[in-house]
């Protein structure tokens, strides 16, 4: 590239800069050896954060799946024919009160605590389910006995006549009541 005017000046300044840099440059062998000594596989922070985010999403999805499967009502078509029974949970949690028996290992204690938690959870779930069913039945009963507040306005003395039809073999005298008055 042919340089003119100010380009020559810039070139001179860059040449001076290059000269200074070359004097200050580290030796190739030094940099090369240090590069060889560096650990080969370096996990970038981006990868780590990506992995952490992926793991968090996975955990959230698993937790959601477990929660949704646990909270789904397990009754089938007999949902509306449930008898109202007192909501006493039938699951009796294992008793852990009192002193722990001698010789009982820590693992066993942990297992017992885990069982207790599971039993409490199951009992709570069952109680909630029963309460929901009772509420459903109460609502259904209330709906079936509901009456409109304006229903009385629609009733009259001739309701029986209006709501009935003439029958076969009915007497003429009674049929007259259907005819207009002359």
């Amino acid at each position, binding site marked *: 590239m042919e340089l003119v005017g100010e380009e020559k000046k810039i070139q001179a300044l860059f040449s001076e800069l290059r000269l200074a840099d070359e004097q200050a440059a580290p030796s190739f062998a030094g940099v090369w050896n240090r*590069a060889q000594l560096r650990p080969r596989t370096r996990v970038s922070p981006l990868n780590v954060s990506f992995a952490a985010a992926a793991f968090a999403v996975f955990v959230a999805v698993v937790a959601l799946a477990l929660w949704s499967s646990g909270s789904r009502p397990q009754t089938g078509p007999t949902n509306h024919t449930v008898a109202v029974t007192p909501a006493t949970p039938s699951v009796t949690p294992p008793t852990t009160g009192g002193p722990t028996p001698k010789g009982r290992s820590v693992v066993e204690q942990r297992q017992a605590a885990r069982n207790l938690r599971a039993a409490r959870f199951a009992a709570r779930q069952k109680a909630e389910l029963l309460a929901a069913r009772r509420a459903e039945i109460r609502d259904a009963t209330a709906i079936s006995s509901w009456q409109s507040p304006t229903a009385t306005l629609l009733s009259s003395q001739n309701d029986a006549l209006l709501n009935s039809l003439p029958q076969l073999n009915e007497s003429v005298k009674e049929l007259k009541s259907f005819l207009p008055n002359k």
Partner: protein
Amino acid sequence: MDIAELKAELEQHHAACFGWALSCCARDRGEAEEVLQTVYLKILEGKARFRGEASLKTWLFAVIRKTAATEYRRNLLRKLRSAVSSEQVSKREPAGGEVDAAFDRSEEQVRFRLALQHLPARQREALHLVFYEDLSLREAAEVMGVSIGSTRQHYDRGKKRLREVLERTEVDYGISWRGKENPGAV
């Protein structure tokens, strides 16, 4: 190309590579060395592979540029994490002590270096590749990963901007530049 052959080639370009790394790292010597080490490591591991699509020097410079950008982002993240003030993070000015400590530089040279730091990165890169590394505009475009037209624009604007900055900092040769622009004015 086997590793011994590549090593010999790299050694030939080492000084130029260091100069380019310095430019990419805002004249930070430590960072430039770190970048160069990373580049050599990439080559050793085969993460950066020369396929002969461009000249070795051009390819090497492109790798250095990319690595420097990655290192810069990484350092920025590190600094952000350690809650360094944003002013310190965003400014990549060379340390004052570094400017005048290493060499016996003339005042003009110091002003020139500071003026370079005031240029946008692309313009600085274009000027550096053409004037410092003696690359053609086409080769500079390959290194920068942009079109030759774009490189030419960065180059022209860079020259103009450099002149303006140098004139603003009252460098002695401001008169000669003005003289070149308007020869009949003097």
